[in-house]
């Protein structure tokens, strides 16, 4: 009789029953918080809804369910709370587009004054509310050392208002305000802000990037952030099928390609220094990523996009070199996920 073997699929799919308890997703816990519960009105395949659920459930699990959230205006706010319905199962406030970090600061200050420091504070918003209009409040929250975990769900444009360019929109992407025209291949090169690096420049306790392709990596980063106090920042890449022109069923795959091409480096940093990167497991050319998204369709419409694609490849190459994405030169402070998975593969003890 041959030995029955279980194979890890390599998808990093959450809730895998073969995983050791310590490696299991918060989503695998029947008592999970369901911070953002069913019935919300996000589009099919929304990366933001997925990322927010995993991140907040992980935060709630880490804080024993005692979390208050401040939310910027944007898709996440609109699709979750048309009164009288609300998808939020934690105390949650939306004030304005630009002030979620400052509202979070106020919540944290109130809790300190009230001596209720067991309650933790999360601020969250999209890339527009974080990278653009909310940057001043976010930077102020960082530099003062306020005890807030801020989560940016980056879908690389103003999706809630109909896909306009933000400072997180990548070069060559088509948006409603960066239409590709002869001589203008979508969004310009040489612009935009890298907010994780800006956050690191504040030398705050913790900065990390993540994608919804590796949800347990996101959860672990939230857990690590919750172990620390002071300002912490996690930047989550969340594909938007509507704005990116990708298939809703391919949200995970598109997010993975962003990482596996090197276009979106996944790393973490403490005190302003990179402490770990998620290495690229199977390097792919940027073209594989771009072809999945109609926001880049103009690059493939005729032969004229080759030079632009080459520039984007150089961007990815630079990221790979800068962050050591192929050799993982920064290593990881924590146990590598693959090691955990390999152990799980040997079956329960």
């Amino acid at each position, binding site marked *: 009789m041959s030995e029955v073997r279980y194979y890890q699929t390599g998808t990093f799919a959450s809730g895998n029953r073969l995983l050791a308890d310590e490696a299991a997703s918060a989503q695998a816990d029947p008592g999970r918080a369901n911070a953002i519960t069913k019935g919300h009105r996000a589009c099919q395949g929304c990366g933001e809804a997925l990322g927010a659920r995993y991140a907040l459930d992980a935060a709630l699990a880490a804080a024993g*369910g*005692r*979390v*208050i959230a*401040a939310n910027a205006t944007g898709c996440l*706010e*609109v699709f979750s*709370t*048309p*009164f009288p319905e*609300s998808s*939020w*199962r*934690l*105390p*949650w*406030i*939306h*004030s*304005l587009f*630009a*002030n979620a970090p*400052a*509202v*979070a*600061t*106020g*919540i*944290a*200050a*109130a*809790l*300190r*004054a*009230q*001596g209720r420091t067991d*309650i933790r504070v999360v601020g969250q918003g999209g890339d527009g509310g974080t990278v653009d209009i909310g940057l*001043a*409040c976010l*930077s*102020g929250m960082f*530099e*003062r050392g306020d005890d807030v975990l801020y989560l940016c769900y980056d879908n690389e444009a103003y999706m809630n208002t109909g896909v306009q360019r933000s400072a997180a929109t990548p070069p060559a992407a088509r948006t409603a305000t960066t239409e590709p025209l002869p001589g203008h291949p979508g969004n310009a090169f040489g612009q935009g802000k890298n907010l994780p690096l800006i956050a690191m420049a504040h030398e705050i306790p913790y900065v990390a990037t993540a994608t919804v392709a590796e949800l347990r990596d996101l959860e672990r980063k939230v857990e690590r952030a919750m172990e620390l106090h002071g300002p912490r920042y996690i930047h989550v890449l969340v594909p938007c099928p509507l704005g990116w022109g990708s298939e809703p069923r391919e949200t995970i795959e598109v997010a993975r390609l962003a990482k596996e091409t090197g276009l979106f480096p996944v790393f973490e940093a403490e005190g302003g220094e990179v402490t770990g990167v998620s290495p690229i497991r199977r390097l792919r050319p940027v073209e594989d990523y771009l072809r999945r998204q109609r926001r880049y369709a103009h690059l493939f419409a005729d032969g004229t996009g080759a030079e632009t694609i080459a520039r984007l490849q150089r961007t990815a190459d630079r990221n790979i070199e800068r962050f050591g994405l192929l050799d993982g030169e920064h290593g990881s402070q924590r146990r590598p996920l693959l090691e955990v998975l390999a152990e799980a593969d040997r079956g329960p003890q």
Partner: protein
Amino acid sequence: MAVASQLEGSLAVARTVARCRPQVICAYPITPQTHIVEALSRIVASGELAPCEFVNVESEFAAMSVAIGASATGARAYTATASQGLLYMAEALFNASGLGLPIVMTVANRAIGAPINIWNDHSDAMALRDCGWVQLYATSNQEAADMHVQAFRLAERCSLPVMVCMDGFVLTHAVEPVELPEQEPVDAYLPPFRPRQVLDPEDPVTMGALVGPEAYTEVRYLAHAKQGEALDEIPVLATDFAARFGRASGGLIETYRCEGADTVIVALGSVFGTLQELVDERRAQGARLGALAIKSFRPFPVGELRAALSSTRGVIVLERAFSVGVGGIVTGDVRAALAGVDVDTATVIAGLGGRAITRSSLHAMLDRHEQGALQPVHFLDLDIDLVERELARHRDGERGGPHAENILRELGIVAAGPV
């Protein structure tokens, strides 16, 4: 028994605010508000006010946003600002009132640029007239201090944010005798904050959600109704304050020698002191003049004004701000309060950008008023010739240059003289 001591207005307000036991104070500096928050930072750092978090924020927009977060978490929250700072937090002001958060804020009233000007007028608070906040105007430093105690109770009673407006420099930097409200009666007057809605993991709520056309009108009307409740509450709070502290402060309006008056000058803020002296001088000359201070501009005391002004023949509304293209701001509300009453109303715009409102200028204005020669919208001490020359200069050439510089040259304040 409280003893009056010589205090700067800002210090009197800061010490009084501290006795109201705010739990979160956030501050961004702007002249002439700075002395208030400087004093509070010392009071918090010394441990005199505890528990309290003093947060140095990066802008007024953040100051109001921090106050919103703190108030929504059930903390008594306070901040102070002026002028550009008030405008910079405009969006958050509407939000705080829309969320029904009882934040109290001092506004050290100051002009708005351009041209940039640090001195007093009411352009800042008047520009935010419709932001849903209660707006109280102090006539003296004693009243400014006392109004803050009343403001916290009013705010928390009605779930409404309250602005206490005090004239920048004229009050904030003036040293005069003030009786500070003592801690024990303040504690008795102002019970701990019990929020009507609060962010609490034990009872999670969603605050600030989207509301569509099916309910927006009703939600907005509720804000109007709450200001109506505040209108009832303000005189009650003032009476209770007088009983506990032994002096009259606040309320909706204050009249000075209005009985039997033919003409009443209506104003907001510290100019009421000047007006009282003016009334005494005119009365001594046989004129039947009175003065009336509006202490609560929002909610607007329609009934009280109507009762106080119905038997007079003329009302002059003295305003420290104006609506460009129309004229008076307060005047419109006063006229609405007097609808159907046979009263002539005139608007006098005075004291813009710190220009002193002198009794001699007011006497000259009243002389013209008695002669029936006062313009419906009169700018006190306006140098109209200077304005005419500047208008002519801009008619003549394409590049007339900046108005402010040209006018200063004409006045000889810029050394090079007229161009």
